[in-house]
């Protein structure tokens, strides 16, 4: 397959934000995750845990609560006092409503989904009615003396439990009056702490209320009498979250990073008397667990250490396939790096700025495994900070390196770069048309003369770039009746075809010259994770979240022979078991048979001329065949040339036929930038 010089890049100083809330929607099997920077991500648990949608963060919009209501509507509330509804089709914020109660700490949708309850800083609990297109304030519950940190509805919708500081209130949801109050012991291991914060409550249908608090207790109360029935001391630190599933199982997360599973278990085998038993502890987090969710088959947790952990409950999993394995999602399932191949430039996207780096060079040569001496080190050329509190949604650098574009929710930026020896001058292109803002994906054509922008509301536009400006913003004809936003774009190197994919509606191929739809690739059940169009042949390569890869010929409007062969034979089982999606596809500039694709833990060069591996052959063969004869090597060679040397990978591309660039982000570097975890003693008395 050949030797490559690999630019191993580890200076992309990307740190994901900590997870603040998770909300599981049983109806669609989707998971909403909000992070401390206000980003909200939607994971489709049925599609191999693919992160299919995201809403960019906002500095002033720290979410404290997230919930699904009325079927599939998603609401969040935060410390700015606003309740926000997200538009899951157009990928925008539908509206924001101020609750006028100060910062909002908690939110809960009623079991019927028609009402929304928020708990505020001033001790008020406010009830909102969910109307088809908005929410409307209905009533205040009896005001409490301190902030409401947690809320839970009785499954019948008749009562509400609210966790405050040092006590839990029970409200009648009809009248809004407080009918009960349960005082929580401040004592912690014999020492009186200042305050006991009720971080989470859960109301069960038999009237039981479960509370978790800052003293490390999980307490089970009888709400009718207001008595404590059972006390589990689970941690030396705070227990910060609780989630209940099906009334017989709940999960709590602690600040020490431990997740405990509790189950309602019969006391003895014959009796019908049941009690809550702490059954399984899990320690998948180094830092505190801020949020937990409980799907029917899995425990989901996330916290300060930025990992989203999905731990299937083995007894609930029926088929012991790869879905039964533990998932740890750390990196976003989209591309944060773009590359100008000719100029060897890398553009890194952060939440609020962009960084432009030029790769170094070497004159030395070596054999496999050598690190070559650098004749020129990598340069940090540019640090481009966006104004405003909004996070960057997407960014791109043109293949020639002359243009940089990026977009936030309200603004679109286009810059012209001029290189004069070592000096760079940057010029912002002003007066960008307003309809370009909130672009979800930006792409330059191969010759850097056109810019394709996929905005929300499903619009797709092309701009012709000229020295110092742009002309002709023209729109592609939208598909009739769809408002599906396009998340992924790919343009053919000859500039004739543009492929675009939304989160579910399949892949559309447009003719760039006529601005018309050329064809639609047959719909597939799983969302697209990466797209690319091959040079010369104009074959569209599509990767899906179930790890299938298809090759579709745009001129012939059908799947290629190779793709059919692959589908007939099926992928290697180890290939299908990878748990991160392919996020980038590119092609060898000289050899049209070679496709490069990568996920977080490997990159793979597919040589279409070689036979496909079957389940008996070794998929990963990291060791070089030292003493094997050429015959054996040829016999065992298969199409998938995989390297797992570099990981976790955020980006891999071929700069030219002999040069690769791999952007790594070691987890240790991320941990080093997180706040220190609660230290636990290992040895001693």
């Amino acid at each position, binding site marked *: 397959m050949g030797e490559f010089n690999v630019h191993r890049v580890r200076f992309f100083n990307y740190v994901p934000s900590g997870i603040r809330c998770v909300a599981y929607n049983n109806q669609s099997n989707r998971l909403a995750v909000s992070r401390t920077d206000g980003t909200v991500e939607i994971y489709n648990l049925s599609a191999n845990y693919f992160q299919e949608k995201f809403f960019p963060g906002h500095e002033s919009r720290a979410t404290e609560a997230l919930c699904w209501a009325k079927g599939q509507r998603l609401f969040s509330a935060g410390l700015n006092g606003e309740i926000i509804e997200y538009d899951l089709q157009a990928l925008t914020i539908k509206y924001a409503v101020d609750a006028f109660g100060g910062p909002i700490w908690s939110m809960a949708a009623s079991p019927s989904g028609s009402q929304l309850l928020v708990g505020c800083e001033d001790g008020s609990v406010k009830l909102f009615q969910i109307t088809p297109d908005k929410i409307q304030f209905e009533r205040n519950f009896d005001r409490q003396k301190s902030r409401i940190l947690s809320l839970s509805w009785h499954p019948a919708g008749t009562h509400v439990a609210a966790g405050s500081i040092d006590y839990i209130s029970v409200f009648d949801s009809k009248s809004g009056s407080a009918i009960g109050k349960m005082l929580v012991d401040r004592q912690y291991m014999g020492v009186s702490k200042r305050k006991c914060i009720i971080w989470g409550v859960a109301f069960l249908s038999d009237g039981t209320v479960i509370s978790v608090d800052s003293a490390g207790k999980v307490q089970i109360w009888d709400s009718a009498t207001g008595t404590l029935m059972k006390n589990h001391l689970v941690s030396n630190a705070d227990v910060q979250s609780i989630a209940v599933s099906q009334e017989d199982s709940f999960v709590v997360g602690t600040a020490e990073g431990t997740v405990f599973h509790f189950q309602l278990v019969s006391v003895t085998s014959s009796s019908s008397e049941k009690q809550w038993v702490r059954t399984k502890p899990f320690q998948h987090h180094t830092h505190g667990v801020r949020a937990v969710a409980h799907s029917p088959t899995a425990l989901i947790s996330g916290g300060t250490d930025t990992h989203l952990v999905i731990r299937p409950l083995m007894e609930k999993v029926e088929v012991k396939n790869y879905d039964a394995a533990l998932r740890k999602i750390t990196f976003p399932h989209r591309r944060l790096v773009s590359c100008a191949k000719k100029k060897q430039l890398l553009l890194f996207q952060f939440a609020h700025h962009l960084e432009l780096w030029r790769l170094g060079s070497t004159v030395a040569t070596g054999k496999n495994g050598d690190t070559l001496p650098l004749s020129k080190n990598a340069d940090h050329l540019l640090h481009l900070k966006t104004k405003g509190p909004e996070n960057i949604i997407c960014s791109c650098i043109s293949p020639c390196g002359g243009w940089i574009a990026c977009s936030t929710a309200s603004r679109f930026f286009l810059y012209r770069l001029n290189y004069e020896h070592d000096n760079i001058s940057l010029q912002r292109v002003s007066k960008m048309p307003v309809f370009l803002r909130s672009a979800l994906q930006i792409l330059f054509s191969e010759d850097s003369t056109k810019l394709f922008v996929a905005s929300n509301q499903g619009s797709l536009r092309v701009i012709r770039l000229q020295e110092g400006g742009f002309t002709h913003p023209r729109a592609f004809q939208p598909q009739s009746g769809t408002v599906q936003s396009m998340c992924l774009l790919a343009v053919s190197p000859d500039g004739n075809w543009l492929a675009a994919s939304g989160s579910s509606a399949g892949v559309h191929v447009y003719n760039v010259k006529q601005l018309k739809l050329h064809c639609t690739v047959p719909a597939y059940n799983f969302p697209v994770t990466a797209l690319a169009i091959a040079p010369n042949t104009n074959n569209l390569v599509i990767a899906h979240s179930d790890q299938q890869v298809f090759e579709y010929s745009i001129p012939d409007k059908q799947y290629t022979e190779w793709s059919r062969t692959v589908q007939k034979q099926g992928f290697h089982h180890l290939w299908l078991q990878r748990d991160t999606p392919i996020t980038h596809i590119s092609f060898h500039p000289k050899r049209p048979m070679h496709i490069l694709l990568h996920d977080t833990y490997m990159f793979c060069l597919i040589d279409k001329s070689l036979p496909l591996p079957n*389940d008996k052959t070794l998929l990963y063969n990291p060791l070089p065949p030292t003493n094997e004869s050429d015959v054996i090597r040829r016999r065992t060679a298969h199409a998938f040339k995989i390297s797992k040397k570099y990981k976790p990978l955020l980006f891999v591309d071929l700069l030219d036929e002999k040069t690769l660039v791999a952007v790594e982000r070691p987890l240790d570097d991320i941990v080093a930038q997180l706040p220190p975890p609660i230290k636990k003693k290992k040895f001693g008395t």
Partner: protein
Amino acid sequence: MADLEEGFALTAVPLGSGPDGPLGVEQSDKTDQFLVTDSGRTVILYKVSDQKPLGSWSVKQGQIITCPAVCNFQTGEYIIVHDNKVLRIWNNEDVNLDKVFKATLSAEVYRIHSIQGTEPLVLFKEGAVRGLEALLAEPQQKIETVISDEEVIKWTKFFMVFRHPVLIFITEKHGNYFVYVQKFNSRILSKYTLLLGQEEKCVIQSFSTSVGRKFISLMSLSSDGCVYETLIPIHPSEPEKNQRLVQSQLLKSVVSGSARNGVALAILDQDHIAVLGAPLPASKECLSVWNTKFQTLQTSKELPQGTSGQLWYYGENLFMLHGKFLTVVPFKCEVSSLAGALGKLKHSQDPGIHATPHFVNWETSQGCGLGSQNSEQSKRILRRRKVEVSVQPEVPASTQLLATIQKDSEKHIEVELRKFLATKRTPDFHTIIGDVIIGLLGRCKAEPSFYPRNCLMQLVQTHVLSYSLCPGLMEFALEKTDVQILQLCLQQFPDIPESVTCACLKVFLSIGDDTLQDTDINMESVSDYMDPVQDGEMEGQTAFLQNGFSPEEDNCDSCAQKLKEKPQATADESTSCPVTTKRAALFRNAVLHSAYSETFLLPHLKDIPAQHSTLFLQYLYFLYLKCSENATMTLPGTHPPTLSQIMDWICLLLDANFTVVVMIPEAKRLLLSLYKFVKSQISICSELNKIEVSFRELQKLNQEKNNRELYSIEVLELF
């Protein structure tokens, strides 16, 4: 999984047999060839794999074959009996049965049996048995009568047990069944009465046997549709006496209770039986294979044209009459496993499915395995329950045993108990054993002289008991200071309360050495390290080398110095077992293994007299030193107490009795050595903490070294 293959009919022409079916199917001396005897006049030799007859012989018009043809494996000849008394012997070359060897006997023959490795046997209708050679030497010899009048032989089988031929036949008289076992090496005929254990009206319809190590297992299919198992001892204790055999139920409702004919049973292997009959009153007759171990239906095959209630099983073929044709069903049966019984045998190679690690399922674990049976199984149980309603509950053997306990002599109880334990274990076996023990204890309390020690020992050793099943047992043993039973209980009961554990410990510590000498105790757990002759020099080293950490000289305070003044004495103390007898030590090992909760144990430990607790401490310290002798920190022998168990007990004892022990002069040296040991442990921990910190620093440095190069160009070759 058992697997019935597609069957095929053997006879192209229907057997002229009528409803009774063929008289018999017997193996011939060549594999795959079988002799089929028509109930009329014909014997046909079939080759099964070719599905065609090889030869056919008939008796004259007017004569009738009364006993199926068999092959004499020693000579290769065939033998039949016609008209009850006329014996014919011929071979393959003969064409006409009229012209072959003929012998007329003086009594009526029931069956001729022939198996590989021994001469054929002739069983007469009166129960007498003769070898073929002896009979042919004098055909008109007088045949004695063995069974009584009106007794009729119902079923018979001849097989080899440890190379000795054994004939078993069952007779019936007025609804009572008798089993005769004739052994030819000792010429002993044992007679047993078969107790049906259910209402009288049940008629046994089919029998089958298999031979185990100690027992012949006789299975019978009753007219109530259930399969019963009876174990017949191969070596009966009193062969001359008429003994009774008890049936235990093996499978319920395998065939419909109302089906009066067409029912048969065959044992296929250790765990599988084949049953012929209609599973439901209205349904067609079926051939079904059951797993007796897991009581599951493995496979079944419908026989829509009806069958005759005869089933033969040879090698891998089942023979039965289907309609008017003799049908052969080839059959395969794998070794029974739980997975196989539940129909969940793992697929040999399925790359998509990976074995997942074992996990605890809290929701189903409480059912003690009953809940883990799959739905198919539970459905079947439900169906059985329905049937059960109509069937009266049987009188279990356990109630008889409980009655025996209340009145019989100790010796007799022991015998009965042994018999009971020999029978098959029912699901409620452990509760029965618990009831038996409670019954015994109740009688012990009533009659102070009654103490069935052997029975109790035997019951405890069934491994099914727990403290809560027989709450009085240990208290009673404590009262009697029966250390042997206490030791057994401590070893086998999982749920002994702390107070009882502590009481046992007290008994063990206080019991006199001379009393111990007389008791017989299991010593295997201590025999390896209680050797009184020790190498003093080596022990001296271990006293100071703890956990591989040797405290420096100046770390030792004055107390340690004092210790060192008398090094010889120290070495002695730490090396020789402080407990005078090995046996006392052993009890403590049993105690050390028992489960406990500190909070509940501590108050009871406080009650132990100071001298005793010092002795126990010394012993524990001795064990600890023994532990630290080798690198793995374990004691030799089977089931030794672990280091942490020893340490936990030392801590517990000190916690409970420190204020007392500290006042006792003889405990001073022990406390000093313990103090020294704890001190060294603390320094180890602090060293470990230091090492951890420096190690972390090193790791950080190492990481920095790795990560310092934020950018590099490397060469990578893809293969």
